[in-house]
């Protein structure tokens, strides 16, 4: 799969962050993406779209990012789905918890377009 063929699901409760991430993705060549405001909405989006890459926040209402990752990792269809977590949580235990839940990589906000591109390429 070419990195340009990605269909990315952006999960963040902040509309501003979703726009920043989507704009940044477009600028680095990933034009196809959909959005969700929390883990629950994201699970619905996964059913509706042929998503092959997920970028998710951690702190969200309804279902947070950690619960969302844990949930999709428990489903056979999404066990190998690349998941990049972008969050303000930068403590060691946070990162370890995220790794345990099954994230493929982790970025602490604020991020730069370069970091985002680098992490996506690394995961792929």
């Amino acid at each position: 799969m070419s990195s340009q063929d990605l269909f990315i699901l952006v999960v963040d409760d902040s509309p501003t962050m979703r726009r920043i991430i989507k704009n940044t993705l477009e600028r680095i060549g990933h034009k196809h993406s959909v959005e969700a405001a929390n883990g629950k909405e994201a699970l619905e989006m996964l059913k509706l779209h042929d998503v092959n890459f997920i970028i998710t926040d951690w702190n969200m209402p309804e279902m947070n990012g950690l619960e969302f990752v844990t949930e999709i990792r428990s489903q056979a269809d999404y066990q190998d789905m690349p998941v990049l977590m972008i969050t303000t949580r930068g403590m060691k235990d946070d990162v370890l918890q995220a790794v345990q839940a099954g994230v493929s990589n982790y970025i602490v906000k604020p991020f730069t377009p370069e970091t985002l591109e680098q992490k996506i390429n690394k995961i792929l």
Partner: protein
Amino acid sequence: MGTKKKTTNDAEMIKKEDYNEILSRIKHIKSLFAFGEGILPFLEELFVFLKEVTPLLNEVSSNIMNTTGMMPDAAFELDSAVEETSDATYRIMESVEQILVLLDEYQEKTKDIKELENVDSPVDEIRAKSMAIMNALQFHDIVSQKLVHVRKVLGEVQQRMLALFTRVYDLDIDSDVKENILSTLGVNVDEFERIMETKIEQQNRLTDDSTGPRKEEKETPTPSAAKFDQSDIDDLFG
């Protein structure tokens, strides 16, 4: 005969038991005196301490009461701050997106103009600067998450303080005694009753999603406070 002897023995036994009881009580009283002797200086000190500290406590409690009353206002101020920065961020974002579209259109329109081939174009630089502005807008998300957390803590503290005052207020005791306790806590009873009347309304406002610009997030507790840099994270993921 046998019965009389038995009665005498019983009386002796009772007497013995009585004596033992009296002796035990004397011992107990003696120990109480000994304890009293030991504790009296401490009690004296405690009374002096209470006498000195009571005005201070009254002042502090009064502040607590006032602060508790002011907490909903503070929460709304925080909401308002998040909302205002959210609006401002949205407007900045829109402008930046429009600039980026204009730059793309300009570049598209001018790509075939030969006269411009050797002219240094500022387009790429403007685009980079615009992207930098957009990325800087992440501050809004970071700050608003912190404000939402502060607001949540504020709400919890206010609830606990009101619960404490309410518990005293609901005590099944003489109303004068109750008023004394409440006033010792620095609570103006009339004022408190007024707060109690508006409490439900305030709590509704505090927990009402529509008043806050951002829904409360589900937080996962972090057991350790060890900070992890992005470089540490990069190392972890290899």
